[in-house]
């Protein structure tokens, strides 16, 4: 276990309990999102991890080591920390800002310069920015710098307190991509506080929902959406999102057609035409003998090459777009709709063809989702009418 919080509690003077009893175990590579109402204790938990605050009771263990026995200054240098208000040093250049921790750790000048260039690239900003001051950057650019500063000394655990607050949706999304990439590609562990449910559901491998110093639910985003632990969680997620979530957590395998029309690559072109004609389709998926998806062949190509004596494998287009059967429908929907595919083959982990998602399937799904939403709306109006009757 990389990071363990054991019965953490924080009381402020006057018996004000900010955090009641939080126990949480975090594996390396996880992306943990804390979400909850204002004042629920999220920041307090985060700051007890890097000892910006001392817990009233309970322990924080990093790799099994009790952090209260470590030098807090050294501990903080090992944990990346992005504070809510960015907190760049106004009197230091961007270069000095992002290599501050390496400097505290007494890295050599060359190593620091190399790091600065690496980090500015990571932030997707031009190298010239290294010699600017924070006030010469836009808010979003400053926030990017604040985020990459937390990676300067190759910290494995990154604490972030509402790092993308007050940003426009586009900048926000690109920063979310940035941290997600860092988690997935570099295997960093994130503890991330946010107010934004969409952000939490998008980034988290584990969501921690807090209210008034207590943990309401700790679970994967899918499970939180499927099984909200109590009414508070339901309200926090929001009715709308729960409805929207219905298709989103369904795996593709559940909605696909399980009998796709396909042909093996060693077949002759007349056989292919025969199959198309019988099944009344204008494209065929092509697999090898083990049913592994290899490509696709359409009627136009077939027509052009019909008398060439080639096999299906010779003329097929091997650049075929596919989805995995366990991927989430929401992504598939977006891709099919955005990229204009008529249909998309579905494969299993071994890349064997197991089904197909057609536009017709999607229409059914969207129809069902909207229809059930309508039903809910009707229910509510009926209740409204009843109440009106009572008043009469």
């Amino acid at each position, binding site marked *: 276990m990389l990071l363990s919080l054991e019965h953490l509690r924080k009381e402020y003077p006057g018996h004000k309990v900010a955090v009641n009893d939080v126990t949480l175990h975090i594996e390396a590579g996880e992306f943990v999102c804390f979400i909850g109402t204002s004042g629920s204790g999220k920041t307090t938990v985060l700051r007890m991890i890097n000892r*910006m605050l001392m817990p009233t009771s309970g322990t924080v263990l990093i790799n099994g080591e009790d952090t209260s026995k470590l030098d807090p200054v050294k501990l*903080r*240098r090992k944990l990346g*920390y992005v*504070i809510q208000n960015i*907190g760049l040093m*106004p*009197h230091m250049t961007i270069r000095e800002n992002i290599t501050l921790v390496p400097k*505290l750790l007494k890295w050599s000048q060359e190593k620091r310069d190399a790091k600065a260039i690496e980090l500015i690239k990571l932030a997707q900003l031009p190298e010239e920015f290294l010699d600017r001051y924070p006030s*010469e950057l836009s808010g979003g650019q400053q926030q990017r710098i604040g985020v990459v500063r937390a990676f300067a000394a190759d910290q494995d655990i990154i604490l972030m307190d509402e790092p993308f607050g007050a940003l426009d949706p586009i900048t926000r999304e690109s920063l979310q991509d940035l941290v997600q990439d860092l988690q997935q590609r570099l295997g960093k562990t994130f503890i991330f506080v946010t107010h934004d449910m969409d952000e939490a559901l998008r980034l988290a491998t584990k969501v921690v929902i807090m209210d008034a110093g207590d943990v309401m639910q700790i679970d994967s985003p899918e499970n939180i959406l499927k099984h909200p632990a109590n009414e508070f969680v339901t309200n926090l997620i929001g009715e709308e999102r729960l409805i929207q979530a219905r298709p989103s957590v369904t795996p593709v395998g559940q909605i696909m057609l399980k009998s796709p029309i396909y042909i093996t690559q060693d077949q002759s072109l007349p056989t292919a035409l025969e199959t198309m004609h019988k099944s009344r389709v204008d494209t065929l998926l092509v697999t090898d003998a083990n049913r592994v998806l290899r490509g696709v062949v359409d009627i136009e190509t077939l027509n052009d090459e019909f008398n060439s004596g080639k096999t299906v494998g010779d003329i097929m287009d091997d650049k075929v777009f596919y989805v995995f059967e366990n991927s989430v429908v929401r992504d598939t929907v977006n891709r099919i709709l955005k990229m204009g595919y008529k249909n998309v083959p579905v494969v299993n982990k071994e890349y064997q063809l197991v089904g197909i998602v057609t536009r017709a399937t999607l229409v059914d799904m969207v129809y069902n989702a909207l229809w059930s939403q309508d039903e809910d709306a009707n229910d509510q109006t009926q209740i409204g009418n009843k109440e009106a009757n009572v008043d009469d």
Partner: protein
Amino acid sequence: MISFFQTNGAELLVKIWQHIYLSFVSLGLGIIVAVPVAVGLTRAKKLAGFVIGLASVLQTIPSMALLALMIPIFGIGSFPAIVALFIYSLLPILRNTYIGLNNVDPSVLDAAKGIGMSNMQSIMQVELKLAAPVIMSGIRLSATFVIAWATLASYIGAGGLGDFIFNGLNLYRSDLILGGSIPVIILALITDYILGKIEYLLTPKSIRA
């Protein structure tokens, strides 16, 4: 004018030197004491009101009275004068340093601590640098006070340009009074100019007005 320099030129140089010595030693001591105390006060805010209040009270003691008080304690000469001037220099530096440090953006301090700066590193590399312009204006103010009041040090035998002025007053000789006062004014102006340059150099580039 020329005859004034001919008769008093050598003595004038000596008095100017004494004046500079008195002012700068007491100002230097003031900085050495007030800046660290102010830093300490930002870490113990409860004490701040009391300590700054105390410095304000000291400031309100009439300068002649303060000098006179020094005699029974330290006798006469430059030492008691330096002590008195040092006490006067404290308040502006103390107050400005404290205000300057307190005005540093708390999120910057939080970040400094959060990324792993020790208390000392935060003070030296962040807080004092960001507060430098405010601290320096306190020092400039103190410098002007100290140079002006150093003339009174002559009263307890510490020398300085005050000697000319007091002699002039005693002998009803306006050339001596002017010969003492004008160098004091010039000294104050030059000092302020130099401190202004230092202030500019100490102010981080990005926050220069």
